């Protein structure tokens, strides 16, 4: 049975959106059928988010038409789209942590009795929706007391608790671990069986292939084509996204370090709370060490301890063989240990500042307030990193928030590299960015290592960790369970190591 036999729920024809002279979306057609999971693929800047914004009413179309069940619709705000049955679950969860789960689901259409909100009915309704999704939580509990994964499911519960025709999932899996992703997919499949049209946007190719029926590829604001997942090989998909052969984007791994090379930092029994516990680790000069582990394994926490961002409860950190303790990241930066957070938007890029200001920020902070860098010097520094890292910005004075995720990440890396670090700790540097930018960042890591910088590379994507690192450290449940040369492990073996249930304790 083909979905194409029926008429599409959403039909976009000739969609065009221009920012200034540049077309973010240029005459794009798009179709979405009831009961299918459809993926929108493309590099950053390909027009994916513009198309999604147009579909969800966040951005008006310059030209073209959106038809919902055959009827042309005009949406001037996300509220309009919601009224029409187009609901969106965003990457950054946009619910309210200070309210109960039930309220988050019902807000704006609470059941009422005697003119007031009927809390009991609201909780019962929420419980029913959550039960449909197979989520077992107390609807009266505060949303903020749950994990991100649960919050994501609550966001979906909110979306489907009203009449929903189209569900847009924008990077829903980027902060979930494998189990949680499986749970999400189960829910998505159920919704699909109920006839909801689902648009699933993700950078994880595996997930797209596991879940989606069809794929629409965009490149440079233009439609490349619409394909059935079954008939499109991965390699072809990547090629269509990039517009060039994959062979042209080789991935180089960091050189194997000379075993006699100097140890830059050494952790001895580092412990903070329950994760990490008792971590021993040495990082050599020019080495790329990958941290592999599930969400909550302590991979981020260990990286933060190594950079001196957090303070350990026990254990010590040796830098160049001398014990070092940090009251905060500032001392760590002084010793050449720099950390880039996994939360790019909240702990990294400052969207209201320009690209130049973002790059200069750390250097200026290190110099102190009273030794202001001249504008010319700032410009020079920014230009050199924009150039070296291939940051795509209209000018150094463009606001950082206007850049794509990948370019923001490069700006962040530029900021840290401007400090001339000895150890660069990158936490999820490729999360939420497209394939092309991923490859560039991975190559960058190799290049830095070749120049003698040690890199700690934390990522949820095991294959990426394996590809980039010369050594892989596996964390599970706060414990450092393995430390292997990268070329001795296959990704399946690594997966087994990462996932393996703990015995005892």
């Amino acid at each position, binding site marked *: 049975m083909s979905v194409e036999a029926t008429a599409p729920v959403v039909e976009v024809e000739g969609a065009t959106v221009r920012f200034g002279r540049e077309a973010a979306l240029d005459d794009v057609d798009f179709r979405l059928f009831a009961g299918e999971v459809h993926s929108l693929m493309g590099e950053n800047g390909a027009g994916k988010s513009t198309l999604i914004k147009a579909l969800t009413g966040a951005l008006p179309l310059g030209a073209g038409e959106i038809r919902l069940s055959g009827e042309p619709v005009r949406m001037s705000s996300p*509220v309009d789209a919601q009224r029409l049955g187009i609901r969106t679950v965003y990457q950054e969860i946009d619910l309210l942590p200070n*309210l109960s789960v039930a309220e988050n689901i019902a807000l704006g259409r609470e059941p009422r009795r005697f003119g007031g*909100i009927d809390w009991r009915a609201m909780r019962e309704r929420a419980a029913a929706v959550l039960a449909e999704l197979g989520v077992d939580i107390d609807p009266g509990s505060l949303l903020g*007391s749950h994990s991100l994964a649960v919050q994501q499911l609550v966001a979906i519960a909110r979306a489907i608790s009203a009449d929903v025709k189209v569900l847009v999932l924008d990077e829903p899996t980027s902060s979930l671990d494998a189990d949680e992703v499986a749970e999400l997919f189960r829910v998505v499949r159920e919704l699909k069986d109920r006839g909801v049209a689902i648009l699933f946007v993700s950078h994880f190719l595996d997930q797209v292939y596991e879940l989606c029926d069809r794929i629409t590829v965009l490149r440079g604001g233009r439609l490349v084509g619409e394909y059935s997942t079954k008939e499109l090989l991965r390699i072809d998909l990547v090629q269509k996204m990039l517009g060039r052969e994959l062979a042209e984007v080789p991935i180089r791994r960091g050189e194997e370090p000379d075993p006699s090379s100097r140890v830059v930092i050494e952790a001895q029994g580092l412990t903070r709370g329950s994760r990490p516990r008792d971590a021993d680790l040495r990082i050599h000069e020019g080495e790329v060490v990958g941290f592999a582990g599930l969400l909550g394994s302590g991979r981020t926490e260990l990286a933060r301890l190594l950079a001196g961002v957090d303070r350990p409860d026990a254990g010590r950190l040796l830098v160049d063989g001398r014990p070092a303790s940090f009251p905060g990241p500032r001392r760590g930066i002084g010793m050449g240990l720099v950390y880039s957070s996994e939360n790019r938007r909240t702990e990294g890029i400052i969207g209201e500042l320009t690209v130049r200001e973002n790059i200069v920020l750390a250097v200026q902070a290190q110099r102190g307030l009273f030794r202001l860098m001249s504008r010319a010097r700032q410009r020079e520094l920014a230009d050199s990193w924009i150039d070296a890292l291939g940051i795509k910005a209209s000018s150094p004075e463009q606001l950082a928030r206007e850049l794509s995720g990948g370019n923001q990440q490069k700006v962040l890396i530029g900021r840290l590299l401007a400090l001339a670090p000895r150890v660069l700790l990158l936490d999820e540097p490729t999360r939420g960015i497209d394939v092309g930018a991923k490859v560039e960042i991975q190559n960058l890591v190799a290049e830095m290592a070749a120049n003698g910088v040690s890199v700690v590379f934390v990522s949820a994507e095991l294959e990426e960790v394996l590809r980039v690192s010369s050594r892989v450290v596996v964390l599970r449940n706060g414990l450092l369970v393995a430390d292997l040369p990268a070329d001795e492990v296959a990704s399946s073996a690594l997966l087994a190591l990462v996932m393996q249930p703990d015995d005892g304790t």
Partner: protein
Amino acid sequence: MSDVTTVRPLDAVAARVRRFTSRRASWIPVFAAVGILVALLVAGQVYFGNFVTPRVLSSLLLDNAYLLILAVGMTFVILTAGIDLSVGAVLAFTAMLGASLMAQGLPAALVIPVMLVGGALIGLFIGVLIQFFDVQPFIASLAGMFAARGLAFLVSLSSIKVEDPVILWLQSKLFYIDGWFLSPTGIIAILVVVAGALVLQFTRFGRTIYAIGGNEQSARLMGLPVVRTKLLAYVISGACAGLAGVVFTAYQGAGYPLNGLGTELDTIAAVVIGGTLLTGGSGFVLGSMIGVLVYGTIKTAISFLGAEQSWTRITIGILLLVFVVVQRAIVARSTRRR
């Protein structure tokens, strides 16, 4: 055997506690305030011997009715993560306006609504500044404060005595029950608290207030009427200040343009001590009532001691500091957990 029977109820209690903390975590600061109130009362009773008596407790409400009304309005505003510095000046302005209108012979039945509307209009002015001109609530309400104070002086530079029987009755009429007494102003204040609590808990408007305090952007994306709700919060605060003006006029028997200097800060202090987060989205009108009672109790205790009332401010200052620090800790913990 005995193990089983003792363990089970404990488990049940633990489950209850867990459920409570996951559902009602935001009440914890309110309980802290209740604890402080009880501690103050017990300490007062131990020290003075005649502190916890119906007379003292009754006058607590009588003396602080206006502050209670202000605190309810302020709670709405702070829950949206805003602030309203104008309430003390609005109180003074409406009191002056009312006193002068009544001095010209207008009946209270007409003057009181005028005072309420006057307060509400200043609230609306502040809300419009914030919402449509993108002014920080601190600055917008500061402008409102100066405007209202100026208007108060514009009415008259000196005190105006109020002789309207209805207004005076509001304070002088005391209903006695068993040594306890309650004035109409106290009844008004309690009604305002009840109304405020019901509105926040059981109306969409009330829940939208919390939603805005949680995350304004998200509230907007959810299709909630953010603009209307925020405007209304400031209007409510202004109207409460107008009502407080009525009650304060009854309390003082006169209007004076320098009335209520610094009252806005007392109000904010009471709201914060009552467990409302200045960052918005968490807090309760009932908590604010406890905060006002804590404030009033400290004031009473200090007058019992015969010490300078400046000690009230010092004590409140210290308490406030403690509460703000505790709140920071709570917020920091909850963000780390996520």
